[in-house]
């Protein structure tokens, strides 16, 4: 037990970082993730055995790292990954949830899904190929989804003789491009996923690189976009009225604080009604709280009997309100089988609020190859574009750049019930 990788006293305090990993086929993404899992011991021995057995290999040294992360039988047969998979690993400093997005067709849908919850992204680049059109697409989508930190892992450095010039050229090109895509924080690291250089261990072969390893970088990124300092937003999930003998009149508003903070006594406004009250109590199973902040799930009670139901939002009276409009312009990633066209109707779900919407205008589509704006009359599966939506009733939202939770929504096809679009409120 002396070799335990955890100092579990410390473990009580560790934070969560959500990652998304993207790359084109054969850039070495599976190898890199396999390497991270093995080096942080996220891959347990019997899973390693299952992999080696299949390959007919005997020793751990021969384990095919990429096989570790393959999920479904259908995929193993075809040798491709067709869906986003989630991986978990931890170091004594941090726990990581990694969305592993396959890099072929469907990649836009998968990337948007994986990136939607991520605080940081790793883009794989094959050092031999340099910056490819798909690398730019990935960076564009990460900018659109507003992933805070983007790490470019320039992989297979062993195959280019660990040459600094190759690396520097790739980095220069990417920095210039990413700056224009709204990526705030770009970090580049030369690695060899196969040999392990600069993944969990400093490379002996690249003395010219003085920066952090990939794992050190992941451990040091700021993990949350300070959502507790933004205006308070509390979409109501449920109104809790137990009406039991000991709680005959209890009326609690249950929900998750998606941004900001609230304290007992604060004045709040309910939207859409505009009714005001003050916070009487913040209840939790562990006892009443004096204050609460994002992203906590709590129950609030108010001092006045005002009408509030699921889909409404509580905000603070002394803070800026979200826009409440019957029209909204969004950046859209289309993931439905049937194309989106003007005048089509869908159901929108934003926080806990659902409503009917109609597409009033397709403003433009983004050509995924050139990243230029083009005009079109339809968005097909995996297309990106800007559209205007007309809402059945006013919806309260912030721009996605200001507030990921109140600025994001999904579109649902009312006939198939499938999720067909991922939308982000433009502007901000």
């Amino acid at each position: 037990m002396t070799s335990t990788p955890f100092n579990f006293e410390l473990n009580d305090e560790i934070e969560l970082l959500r990652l998304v990993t993207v790359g084109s086929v054969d850039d070495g993404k599976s190898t890199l993730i396999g390497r991270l899992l093995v080096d942080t011991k996220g891959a347990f021995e019997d899973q390693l055995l299952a992999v080696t057995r299949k390959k007919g290999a005997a020793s751990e040294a021969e384990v095919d790292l990429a096989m570790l992360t393959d999920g479904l039988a259908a995929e193993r047969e075809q040798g491709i990954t067709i869906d986003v998979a989630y991986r978990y690993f931890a170091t004594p400093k941090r726990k990581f949830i990694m969305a592993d997005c396959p890099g072929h067709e469907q990649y836009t849908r998968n990337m948007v899904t994986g990136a939607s919850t991520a605080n940081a992204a790793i883009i794989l680049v094959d050092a031999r190929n340099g910056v490819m059109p798909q690398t730019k697409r990935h960076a564009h989508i990460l900018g659109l989804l507003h992933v805070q930190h983007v790490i470019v892992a320039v992989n297979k450095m062993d195959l280019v003789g660990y040459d600094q010039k190759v690396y520097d050229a790739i980095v220069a090109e990417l920095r210039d491009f990413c700056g224009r895509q709204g990526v705030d924080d770009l970090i580049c690291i030369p690695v060899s996923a196969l040999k392990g250089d600069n993944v969990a261990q400093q490379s002996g072969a690249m003395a010219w690189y003085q920066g952090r390893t990939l794992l050190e970088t992941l451990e040091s990124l700021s993990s949350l976009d300070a959502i507790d300092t933004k205006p308070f937003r509390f979409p109501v999930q449920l109104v809790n009225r137990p009406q039991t003998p000991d709680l005959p009149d209890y009326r609690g508003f249950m929900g998750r604080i998606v941004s900001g903070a609230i304290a007992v006594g604060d004045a709040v406004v309910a939207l859409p009604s505009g009714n005001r009250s003050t916070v009487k109590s913040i209840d939790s199973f562990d006892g009443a709280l004096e204050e609460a902040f994002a992203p906590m799930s709590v129950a609030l009670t108010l001092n006045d009997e005002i009408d509030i139901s699921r889909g409404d939002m509580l905000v603070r009276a002394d803070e800026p309100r979200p826009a409440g409009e019957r029209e909204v312009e969004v950046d859209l990633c289309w993931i439905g089988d049937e194309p989106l066209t003007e005048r089509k109707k869908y159901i929108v779900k934003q926080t806990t609020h659902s409503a009917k919407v109609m597409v009033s205008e397709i403003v433009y589509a983004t050509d995924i190859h050139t990243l230029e704006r083009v005009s079109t009359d339809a968005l097909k599966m995996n297309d990106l574009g800007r559209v205007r939506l007309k809402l059945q009733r006013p919806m309260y939202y912030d721009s996605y750049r200001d507030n990921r939770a109140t600025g994001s929504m999904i579109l649902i096809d009312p006939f198939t019930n499938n999720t067909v679009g991922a939308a982000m409120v433009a502007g901000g």
Partner: protein
Amino acid sequence: MANNALSGRKLTQLKMLESESIHIMREVVAEFRNPVMLYSIGKDSSVMLHLARKAFYPAPLPFALLHVDTGYKFPEMYTFRDNFVKEIGAELIVHRNEEAIAKGMNPKEFGVARCCGALKTAGLLEALEAGGYDAAFGGARRDEERSRAKERVFSIRDEFGQWDPKNQRPELWDIYNGRIHDGESVRVFPLSNWTEMDIWLYIRQEQIPIVPLYYAKERLMVERGAMLIPYYESMRDQLLEGEEPTMVMSRFRTLGCMPCTGAVRSNATTIDEIVIEAAAARRSERETRIIDHGSNSMEDKKKEGYF
């Protein structure tokens, strides 16, 4: 311990996971007509149930607990179940596939796959149909097994309770699409993002009661190959040649059916010791469940309607 869960204005990862799970449970209660929570008496179920109590506090649980009983659980599990459910005042529904049990279904004669298929999968589908549930919470985690890594939080099942890996909805941000057609249902996994380590750390932090079998004790065991099989008098005729039960200091990392759940040698008698042991563990927990050894077995079971 509640206080050190907040470090400044940041949530620890356990508190983040807790908040996320509560959010999921409330969404289900808001959007579905008749939800139910699968309760298997294991550590994951115990955490899920604890989170549910937090989610709806101060109200009682707005759904019943459903235990699909194979009849092969450890005696300690039944005792724990009955006492705990009573203590928290929850409603418990126990469902058994009586037809298969009457036919004497067992893993030794019929094979593990058929036995699980009848007692667990068919039993579960029967129970869900009998209750008319349109949503069922399960305590599965994505890190348990490779085919679970792609499971959604909301997993849509057809009228036969079956899962189609090619037809699952993308889940964006934490906006869940709970719309289903008549006859369809949804399995919801609020612990999707929890790892085994998180489960133990949370049990420790929240002091959640768990079945005593999780703690190490001298127990009668049969050693078969690398496996430690718990011995009960009723199993005498199932011993192989030359096997003799002996006392072994051991515990269970997962709890399933008696004939199919192995123990591990351990001296961990407290939750702190279990946490340290889990941190050092080099074998994933399902290894001690005999049922998962065939390749793709979990994926096949899931397609048929298992969790």
